[in-house]
């Protein structure tokens, strides 16, 4: 259905962004920027978007599932030969979900920021960036075509760059911003090529708008090899944006930005764009089991790797950052095994509890005057009870403790990973499952370690700081509470059938993934998935219980698996409590006993160093010493100058032939005559 007001959703924050930017520039020399005005303006943009998103959602609910889609084509963007790109927006169940939590969480974090950033001189500048981010993210979510999605994709990357480098006077922070941008660019390289490949493929069938609808219509044009190539290239982009192996390295560094930024961009929204992209392009991923498998494997590997690194980090935000990387890995496993709904579900829940965790960390850091090292914290639960409790709730949600949000989404992914057979590597599902469970264990462990070190025990920093620690102001507390509430509740949208739930979220998302399941059904029987069958029936009654025979028949293993996962979570929590609350010495003793492991983990497996040594430095050295100094200056320019020098030398020789002796001149004349005669006669 046409909805000509969709463009308002992204535009609202853009307008406020521009206004804030103008204010920032106009008041750059003023002593006190108009904080109140800016604060209101900045929250207004995302707030409006949120309201409009709600409106879109309600309109969407009123539509039949088959055509459940709002769309608007704003204008023709690029028109060149067969290439006809429009700026068009679409709201389908998938994007409506994304819209809701992006704008919702976004608005909350804006509100939080008005408190958190209150003392900053660059207050207006900050909100200009943040609103611009909202704009880009909304473009990304609303885009109805790959290129427009790419606009948002790079836009969020830009804002991430700007916000990470917000405190630009710190060179490390500015460098972190650049690193984020550049690493993302490497991923974007993949997306660009993927787009070219898609266009190149589709021109044969006479379509080159690159809109998702068109792509969906023409999936038959893709051979498996092509589909694999496109998917892997897209996934390269996703690894960049969503911080997966091998491009995750930027995200921990990105914690240099203000904490609300970490919450919004580097936890809740932007980093999930990769998952969103895969989900959006599910119809192609469905064509390529190889690519999907790779997605799942990379996701699982990232989940475990990041979780292990998080265990040994001492920076509050870095722990959370690695946790984010790890959770993103889960999501990729979800979409990788074809459980797009599960993946998106985790995106959704994760947004709440991770945002809550980050905001909590922000409150702590704020309270301790920018102290981030957890070794110098402790016992803060007395000082900051609200923060403590919201933080614990979110932690438990992350650890997957029922009935909090994380439990349902994570469990869903785990079960899908285990239950969906894999045609490429039949042995894979159990492996994936084991890896994810192990990661879950680590997750619970490091999260409880965090809680223990920050809030429990006694304070380890200097007393003065502790004295001045204070609970968060209302503007910061309110979002915390709301997000914690969300962390408790949103999981209930996707209670699996096993537990008597109806998994409303899955049903809601279903129309977005219809085609994928269609093709799954049409393609060879490797996709014997359970939700596929259920989907067909769901259509009739959305929101009602779609009980599937298939689902119930697998009930026993599912409950067993669920139990194991839950046990792992609890074990992790318990271990954490044991080591960091009960017997804190044991933790250090353990670390002492395994110095190599500790160093490896604390050093993040030295991946950054590896990249620097293997790629960055050689490239720079090669460019400088070989390309510039030798090839450019010596070879190319040198040969030019050599030519010039030779000419010059020749000229000097000629000049000196002009000796000034008249008889020499006569001699030359005679030689000339001689040559003439000799030539002719």
């Amino acid at each position, binding site marked *: 259905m046409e909805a000509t007001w969709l463009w308002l959703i992204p535009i609202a924050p853009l307008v406020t962004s521009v206004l804030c930017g103008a204010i920032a520039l106009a008041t750059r020399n003023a002593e006190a920027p108009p904080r109140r005005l800016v604060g209101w303006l900045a929250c207004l943009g995302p707030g409006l978007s949120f309201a409009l998103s709600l409106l879109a959602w309600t309109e969407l609910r009123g539509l039949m599932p088959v055509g459940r889609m709002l769309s608007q084509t704003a204008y023709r963007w690029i028109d060149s030969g067969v290439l006809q790109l429009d700026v068009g927006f679409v709201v389908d169940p998938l994007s409506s979900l994304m819209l809701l939590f992006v704008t919702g969480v976004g608005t909350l974090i804006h509100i939080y920021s008005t408190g958190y950033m209150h003392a900053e001189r660059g207050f207006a500048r900050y909100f200009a960036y943040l609103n611009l981010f909202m704009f880009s993210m909304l473009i990304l979510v609303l885009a109805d075509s790959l290129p427009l999605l790419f606009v948002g994709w790079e836009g969020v990357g830009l804002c991430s760059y700007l916000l990470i480098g917000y405190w630009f006077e710190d060179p490390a922070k500015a460098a972190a911003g650049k690193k984020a941008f550049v690493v993302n660019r490497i991923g974007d390289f993949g997306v660009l090529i993927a787009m070219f490949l898609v266009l190149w493929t589709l021109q044969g069938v006479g379509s080159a708008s690159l809109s998702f609808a068109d792509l969906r219509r023409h999936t038959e044009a893709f051979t498996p090899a092509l589909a694999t190539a496109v998917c892997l290239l897209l996934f390269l982009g996703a690894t960049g944006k969503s911080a997966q192996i091998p491009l995750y390295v930027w995200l921990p560094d990105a914690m240099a930005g203000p904490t609300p930024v970490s919450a919004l961009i580097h936890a809740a929204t932007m980093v999930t764009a990769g998952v969103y992209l895969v989900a959006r392009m599910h119809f192609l991923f469905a064509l390529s089991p190889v690519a999907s498998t790779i997605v799942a494997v990379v996701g699982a590997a990232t989940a475990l790797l990041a979780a292990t690194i998080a265990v040994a980090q001492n920076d509050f935000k870095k722990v959370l950052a690695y946790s984010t990387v790890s959770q993103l890995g889960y999501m990729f496993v979800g979409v990788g095994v074809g459980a797009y709904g599960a993946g998106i579900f985790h995106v959704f829940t994760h947004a709440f509890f991770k945002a809550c965790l980050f905001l909590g960390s922000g409150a702590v850091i704020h309270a301790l005057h920018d102290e981030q090292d957890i070794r110098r914290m402790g016992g803060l639960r007395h000082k900051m009870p609200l923060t403590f409790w919201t933080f614990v709730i979110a932690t438990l949600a992350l650890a997957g403790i029922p009935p909090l949000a994380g439990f349902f989404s994570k469990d869903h992914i785990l079960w899908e990973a285990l239950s969906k057979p894999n045609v490429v590597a039949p042995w894979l599902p159990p492996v994936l499952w084991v890896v994810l469970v192990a990661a879950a264990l680590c997750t619970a462990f490091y999260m409880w370690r965090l809680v223990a070190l920050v809030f429990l025990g006694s304070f380890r920093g200097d007393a003065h700081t502790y004295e001045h620690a204070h609970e968060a102001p209302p503007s910061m507390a309110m979002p915390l509470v709301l997000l914690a509430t969300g962390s408790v509740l949103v999981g209930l949208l996707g209670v699996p059938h096993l537990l008597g739930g109806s998994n409303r979220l899955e049903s809601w998302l279903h129309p977005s993934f219809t085609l994928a399941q269609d093709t799954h059904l049409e393609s060879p029987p490797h996709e014997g998935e359970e939700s596929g069958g259920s989907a067909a029936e769901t259509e009739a009654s959305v929101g009602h219980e779609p009980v599937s025979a298939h689902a119930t028949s697998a009930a026993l293993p599912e409950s067993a698996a669920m139990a194991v996962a839950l046990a792992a979570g609890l074990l992790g929590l318990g271990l954490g409590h044991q080591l960091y609350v009960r017997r804190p010495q044991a933790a250090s003793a353990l670390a002492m006993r395994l110095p190599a492991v500790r160093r490896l983990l604390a050093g993040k497996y030295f991946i950054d160093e590896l990249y620097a040594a293997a790629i960055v430095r050689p490239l720079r050295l090669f460019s400088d010493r070989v390309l510039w100094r030798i090839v450019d200056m010596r070879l190319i320019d040198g040969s030019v100058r050599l030519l010039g020098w030779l000419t010059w030398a020749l000229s000097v020789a000629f000049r000196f032939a002009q000796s000034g002796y008249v008889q020499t*001149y006569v001699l030359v004349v005679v030689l000339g005559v001689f040559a003439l005669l000799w030539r002719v006669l």
Partner: protein
Amino acid sequence: MSFEFAWHPDAWLLVAPMLVVCGTALVILVGDLFLPNVRWTIPALAGLALAAALALARWNQPLAAAEAALNGALRLDAFAIFLQVAILACAGLSLLGAQAYHERAGTGRAEFFVLVLFATVGMMVLVASSDLITMFLGLELLSFPTYVLCGFLRQQIKSNEAALKYFVLGSFASSVFLYGIALVWGASGSTQLAEIAQAPESPLLYLGALLVATGFLFKIGAVPFHMWVPDVYEGAPTPVTMLMATAVKIAAFGALVRTLLVTTLYQTLPLGTILWWCAILTMTVGNMSALTQPNIKRMLAFSSVAHAGYMLVGLAAVATTGWPAGASAVLYYLLAYAAMNIGAFTVVTLLGRRAEGELQFDRDWSGVARRHPGLGVAMALFMIALGGLPPTAGFFGKYSLFRAALDAGLVSLVVIAVLNSLVSVYYYLRVIVAMYMKAEREAPPVLLDALAPRVHAFDGPGAMAAPDVVAPPPAPRLAEARPWGAFLAVAVCAVLTLWLGIGPSLGGLPGLSQVMAWAEAAVESLR
């Protein structure tokens, strides 16, 4: 015994332009006895203008009977008129441009004008003669006054040496030329070009023709007969250099073109190949030698060698195919080249006076464009034109030469020529660099006059000047006078340089298209 002079009433018309110039010379010669303080520039210019008018009046009006009566010694065909007018214009502009120089060097004596006018007559004879012996006489008539003019600054070693070198080499070449005439005459029984064309082929004819060609190539300064050019151009007084570089070159080329086209010897002799090599050598040696030359006059001398090379490209085209397109291109190029060169040399005379050290442009001319913006612009224009960049005459001239050569299929020759002009741009730009881009020199420590012999006192073994010939420095009063004539010459040359480069035909004003048409008509008249 009574003689009947072979004269024809119309013959007066035929020789009238030369007679006028001659008469002007005599008037000045005699007038100087009575009016020793008169400046003779304007009378000389008037004479030249009258001569040009008389020549132009005969355009398209052949004097066949008179020519026959004079036994073909002189012809006033379109070709001759075209070149005679060009020569007269060059001589006039040179005299005008010399004004500043006269005031500084004291060369503005009547003898100077007389000699220039006699040389002009020689040139006019040279381009009008269609008979080898007349050509020889014309050549000598232009040469002897030029030898003397080169040595006109008698106190100056360089000037005297220039005269000596020019004399020795010139006489040598004349002897060779004459020997060639003798052999050609022996082989063909005639010295008339048209009859030589009918002569049976014989080795003697070839030998003679080659020697004659040597004489021409010497006069135009083609490699390897160019060795005199730099030294003579450098040593001679600048106005004389100007004359040699332009008018004399026009005359020599004119005679060469006429000889080539009328005798049609290219049909039997491998002149195409010879000129091909000659052109390449001339361009390359000229440009290469000029490349690092810091003395402006010497640099322009080598550049004039190089330009002779470009024109030889056109002649090579003629000699290869016999098509006259190359010849008309050469005529056009001569005009263009003369305009730029007179302009450049006039600026040299002006700046040589002002910039104390005078001629080492990289040193002495730094920043002068700031003091003399007009001269700077003009010199830059001339340099750009000499380098062959549009929108100047230099470009269009080169363009027409190259087109003719390409028409004749001489692609490799043209490629070498353009590479040469690439090299040439470098040294022309060096002048601009000096004038515009170097910092202006501080006020000169001592006002050295360029002509004072002590400038050369340390210049080598020949510098032991006898004390009795040291000239007193010229009177400052003269040096301060504004040489309007020279400025006028520069302006005229600048306008010509631009106009011959892009000028469209507007109404009655002849554009380059029209000038080209005249050149073609001139060549056509040789048939």
